[in-house]
């Protein structure tokens, strides 16, 4: 039985944005299964439908059509059991200003009917570096600390399936390290993890399998290692002081002075360098590196717009 199963899930919002019969299709027949014990990444640009998909999974939003289940429990028909199996860290940094950290965690335990949970709450506080903040009011915490409490709240009922919706957005390196060590440990102990993030190096390091969403459709779904293999295997990287000609710029990934071209072999590399030279530019600090997930991601996102077989759909 999969930990999470999405079967042909669609979500239409009444909105002028999509302008298709007055509805905007946020998700278009998304199907994917996440097996128990997986560390699964859900990637996509802003507006791709990641949060909508997670909201449907968590019962915050209702699907227009399709079925979603958590460990076999339908999120609409058997919502209580489905939600007991899920621990969701919301993307927004929200908190209840009336209570302190321990109170917030005790209440969250109670909502799930978990009694005498102080030992696990203490372990969570300890593991997430919150032990000295247990008595602090939520209002008094920094953004990073509030984010840690959100994680603790999601895990307070020991859910077998953990969903993290951009948990490291805008947080410092230390928290990222603490968080990933802890989540990786839970994953090793058998928890299934579904992660959405814009930090692709995190996804590459942590996720065994990855799905990429674009405009509400799955455009890539495969093991991380396979996705990396599927992309151009190398990247030519250099710096320039002037603007690239448009024909070259269209093929490149440009970040300030840094220019990167995907390249399969030495011929392609020579061709790009020659084109740069012919344009009267000087490539500095030239290097060739292996392609990473960011390269794969950009390649998938710029490929054929409406194909679900873009890269290694498995």
């Amino acid at each position, binding site marked *: 039985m999969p930990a999470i199963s999405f079967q042909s899930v669609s979500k239409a*919002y009444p909105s002028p944005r999509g302008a298709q019969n007055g509805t905007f299709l946020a998700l278009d027949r998304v199907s994917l299964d996440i097996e128990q014990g997986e560390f699964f990444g859900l990637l996509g640009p802003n507006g791709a439908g990641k949060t909508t998909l997670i909201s449907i999974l*968590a*019962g*915050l*939003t*209702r699907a227009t059509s399709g079925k979603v289940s958590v460990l076999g429990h339908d999120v609409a028909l058997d*919502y*209580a*059991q489905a*939600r*007991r199996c*899920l621990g*969701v860290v*919301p993307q*927004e940094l*929200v*908190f*209840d*200003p*009336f*209570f302190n950290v321990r*109170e*917030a965690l005790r*209440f*969250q*335990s*109670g*909502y*799930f*009917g978990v*009694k005498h949970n102080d030992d696990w709450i203490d372990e969570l506080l300890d593991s997430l570096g919150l032990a000295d903040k247990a008595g602090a009011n939520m209002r008094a915490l920094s953004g990073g600390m509030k984010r840690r409490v959100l994680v603790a*709240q*999601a895990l307070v009922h020991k859910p077998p399936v953990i969903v993290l919706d951009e948990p490291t957005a805008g947080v410092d390196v230390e928290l990222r390290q603490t968080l990933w060590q802890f989540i990786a440990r839970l994953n090793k102990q058998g928890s299934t993890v579904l992660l959405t993030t814009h930090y692709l190096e995190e996804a590459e390091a942590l996720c065994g399998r990855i799905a990429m969403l674009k405009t509400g459709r799955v455009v890539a779904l495969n093991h991380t290692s396979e996705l990396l293999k599927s992309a151009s295997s190398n990247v030519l990287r250099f710096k320039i002081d002037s603007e690239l000609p448009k024909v070259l710029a269209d093929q490149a990934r440009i970040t300030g002075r840094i220019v990167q071209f995907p390249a399969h072999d030495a011929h392609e590399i020579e061709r790009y360098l020659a084109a740069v030279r012919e344009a009267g530019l000087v490539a500095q600090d030239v290097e060739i590196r292996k392609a990473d997930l960011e390269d794969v991601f950009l390649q998938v996102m710029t490929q054929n717009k409406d194909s679900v077989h873009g890269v290694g759909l498995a």
Partner: protein
Amino acid sequence: MTGWQTLLYKEVLRFWKVAFQTIAGPVLTAMLYLLIFGHALEAHVKVYGQVSYTAFLVPGLAMMSLLQNAFANSSSSLIASKVMGNLVFLMLTPLSYMNWFVAYVGAAVVRGLVVGLGVFAVAFVFTDISFVAPLWIVVFGVLGAALMGSLGLIAGLWAEKFDQLAAFQNFIVMPMTFLSGVFYSIHSLPPVWQTVSHLNPFFYMIDGFRYGFFGISDVSPWLSLGVVGGTLVVVSAVAVALLRSGYKIRS
């Protein structure tokens, strides 16, 4: 504690932590009404022919405070959680819509009763209060608070901003409360306004509640019980249906 008990406890703790604002404030307001209206009218008005105006006013003020605060508790808690986004913590839980209803309305009843008792406690200093039929007092106090807690739940779900909730409070709750006979017996009104008052469910809550103190009322307490009970059933059914459908909280 089970899920709904935890939510009830949390909702009670929420207002208790700011008791100066949620309990002491309303009690002070009621006392100001009592001092000013009591002082101005005590010598000039007798109600039901035998009851002093101050004694008549106390149960009305207590019930008015009880009703307004029961409404304020569920409505303000919900709208604040919606605006701040922390309602998500509840929405992610297995709590059923009935659990939500019982917990929110239960906390509203607790706050309503605490404020009502607070008004009495202070009013005892100024005037003698009789309790002719205490059971009626308890019944109307609890039913009234539950009705307003349910209405607050509806308002809290409907409102998307604090000013919408304020409009609900200022243009529906306040006029209906003030025109319900808190400050006067409706027998002192012209016939037309007596008829209009009979269409106001708040009138029956106040009148039935007051019967418990004096054994005298404008209409039979059984009629009031029927109207208040019927209104409670209707308002609760609407609140439960809205929670069940996820009205304005689950898209």
